[in-house]
């Protein structure tokens, strides 16, 4: 017997609202604990290392090649049309505002977000989360808050790192393929971007950090059905985080840089 379409729409809408409500409640409770300074400092440093420091190499690779590809696409033609002085600005502009924060977030969502969901999911199916509750300990304070604080610290750091590496990669490639000297390239960076571009990019990175951790933790904590459930939670964490990062990136670009779009 086929399912009633209205019933299906209703059920899926309810599930979506439950999910959004669950993530919001998790975020609210975590924020409340952070505001009351109920933070496990040593565990936060540990998570900063696991989630942030251990992600630096993949952030380095992705941002360096992205900076290089922007430079590759723009440098030769820019020189041909006499706009060589704009290449550095184009690379820096794109990195500070969009590619630095977003690419770092996507890469971290794939690596650290998945790791969070898998770890917490495994803890659910091996009763470790229930054990925390049985000991009178809050899983949110013990597990979610340290990861959230760690990511709020490390995501902007990784983004700055990605910005720098992307620009350096772009500068090297522009020099190699279009013979744009480094002085011209970095002069263009200084003339066409300012600190506010980078700072507004960092605002994005804070929001992305919250998305990655809350989705990863929520997916992990709602894991059911044994080992297969851990896989489902992990995949869901990456997919949902990346979709939300893209949507949020658009909205934040509109809000943060909106006034510059109209000229």
């Amino acid at each position: 017997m086929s399912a009633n379409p209205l019933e299906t729409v209703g059920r899926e809408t309810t599930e979506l609202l439950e999910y959004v409500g669950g993530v919001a409640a998790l975020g609210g409770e975590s924020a409340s604990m952070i505001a009351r300074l109920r933070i496990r400092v040593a565990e936060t440093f540990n998570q900063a290392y696991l989630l942030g420091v251990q992600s630096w190499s993949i952030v380095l690779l992705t941002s360096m090649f992205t900076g290089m590809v922007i430079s590759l696409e723009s440098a030769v033609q820019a020189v041909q049309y006499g706009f060589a002085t704009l290449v550095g600005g184009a690379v820096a502009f794109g990195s500070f505002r969009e590619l630095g924060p977003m690419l770092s977030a996507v890469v971290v969502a794939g690596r650290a977000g998945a790791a969070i969901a898998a770890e917490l999911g495994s803890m659910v199916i091996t009763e470790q989360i229930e054990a925390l509750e049985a000991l009178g300990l809050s899983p949110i304070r013990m597990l979610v808050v340290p990861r959230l604080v760690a990511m709020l610290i490390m995501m902007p750091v990784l983004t700055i790192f990605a910005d720098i590496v992307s620009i350096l990669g772009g500068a090297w490639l522009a020099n190699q393929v279009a013979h744009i000297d480094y002085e011209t390239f970095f002069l263009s960076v200084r003339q066409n971007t300012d600190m506010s571009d980078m700072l507004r990019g960092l605002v994005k990175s804070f929001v992305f950090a919250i998305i990655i951790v809350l989705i990863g933790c929520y997916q992990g904590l709602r894991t059911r059905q044994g080992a297969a459930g851990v896989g489902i939670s992990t995949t869901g964490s990456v997919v949902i985080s990346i979709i939300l990062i893209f949507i949020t990136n658009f909205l934040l670009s509109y809000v943060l840089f909106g006034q510059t779009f109209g000229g």
Partner: protein
Amino acid sequence: MADRPLIARLDDITLAYGERVVLQNMSLDIVEGAITCIVGLSGAGKSTILRLLNGLRKATSGRVIVKGQDLSQLSENELIDLRRSIGFSFQFAALFDSMTVYENVALPLRENTTLGEEEIRHRIMDALETVGLTGSETKFPAELSGGMVKRVGFARAIITNPDLVLYDEPTTGSDPIITHLLTDTIIRLRSKLGGTAVVVSHDLQSIFMMADYVAMLFEGAIIAYGELDKVRSSPNPIVQQFLQGSEVGPIPI
């Protein structure tokens, strides 16, 4: 009904997950200072009873009274305080993989008390000695055998000196020697702490070794309850079939 003081009482409990009824109008007394073993078939809802006793599950109807407090009337913070006064040993120990044996056992003391590290260390070494695991402090759970993991779980459950300890299938999956060791450990811990233990199990040898009281759960209700000898001599054919481990009888297989 027991005629000795009670530490907990489950009163007319019904618990259902959607359409599936796990417990139906079930009542059970937990006598203070005794070891009460809850027996029954796999999946009968025995572990659920332990989770009702420390408030990890809420009954659909009925009352759970623990240490004079009706759990349904407690706030979340009061419930957390109550849980901290009850030890819980999980079926597969539920040790935290990323922590050493020492850190696992220390966790409730570090997070729930204001004890100094020296006192914590003293208590942990004492607890590990009691469960026969001196020298294992720096090992991680993955480095331990199944029996050792369970004994670390015991140590963590009793580290705060709770007056009520709940053991969920403590001997399941263990060989006869380890089963004897684990059962003997539970008896020694109860003697040392002087408190109450509730043990969920379907390991008859273990139950006969340690139980003061036995309750048999069948189809969501307690069908036999009393001191060990009384339950062993119960005329109920379901109880007799279970105790004899026979395939023949009224229990559907």
